[in-house]
């Protein structure tokens, strides 16, 4: 499945640990999660779903800006999702000092 390929590429990035959906206990270093959120689009034909797309998100939490890691995440998204992704937000968590980037993507459900 295309999603599995995205997970594999994210988990291969150096300097950050990625988990599917959630961490039971968060790592101390840079970390992230990747998940499918909901079905975004579907085309129905001949009483069956023909094409389906999932919308999902990648959350990256880093100590400091960590441009190299962010760039590697974006390369993984570009490779797997092509142009169907965007940086939804980048925010500083005052409580933890982490920078949180949220990427939203769409992929075919296959």
């Amino acid at each position, binding site marked *: 499945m295309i999603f599995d390929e995205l997970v594999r590429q994210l988990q291969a990035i150096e300097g950050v640990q990625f988990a599917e959906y959630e961490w039971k*206990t968060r790592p101390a270093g840079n970390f992230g999660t990747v998940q499918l959120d909901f079905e975004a689009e579907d085309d129905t034909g001949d009483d069956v779903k023909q094409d389906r797309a999932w919308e999902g998100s990648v959350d990256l939490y880093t100590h400091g800006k960590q441009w190299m890691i962010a760039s590697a995440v974006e390369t993984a998204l570009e490779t797997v999702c092509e142009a169907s992704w965007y940086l939804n937000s980048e925010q500083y968590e005052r409580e933890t000092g982490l920078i*949180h980037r949220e990427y939203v993507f769409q992929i075919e459900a296959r």
Partner: protein
Amino acid sequence: MAMTINTEGLTEVSEMLTRLGDRAQDVASGALFDGAGVVADAFTDAVNSIRTAPFKYARPGETRLPSPEEKAALLGKSGVARFRKNGSEVDTVIGISGSAGYADVAGTPKAVRLIARSINSGTSFMVKQPVFRKAKSKSTKAAEAAVVAKAETMFEEIIKG
């Protein structure tokens, strides 16, 4: 938090409005009101669907669900902003705004859009529930259909005189 929905693809409505001249803004406002209502209703449903758990500080390394108080602060705070004329267009904003009615640990009044954003995008200590992004995605087509239906009805009424 507010979201933008682009309805530039509604070319038939656009052409219709051009033909209406001075009455165009009335039709645009009426149609936008119906479309915005669809999205605002979806936002209200989104708030109702948020999962909660009684508040406790997340232990280091763990995440927590929003508290029932945080969810309650969002109820009734979603809506449609005052319509504004923008040249030949009419703009509005659909979203969540206002104060939660309590302060954070630093004593700063907490804005509900901050709570909404924390729930929608998640934080390192808050479970992610992208209910508002889903609401926007799922309601856009229905909102566009409502805009077209209302514009056509108003257009016919004007033509009939």
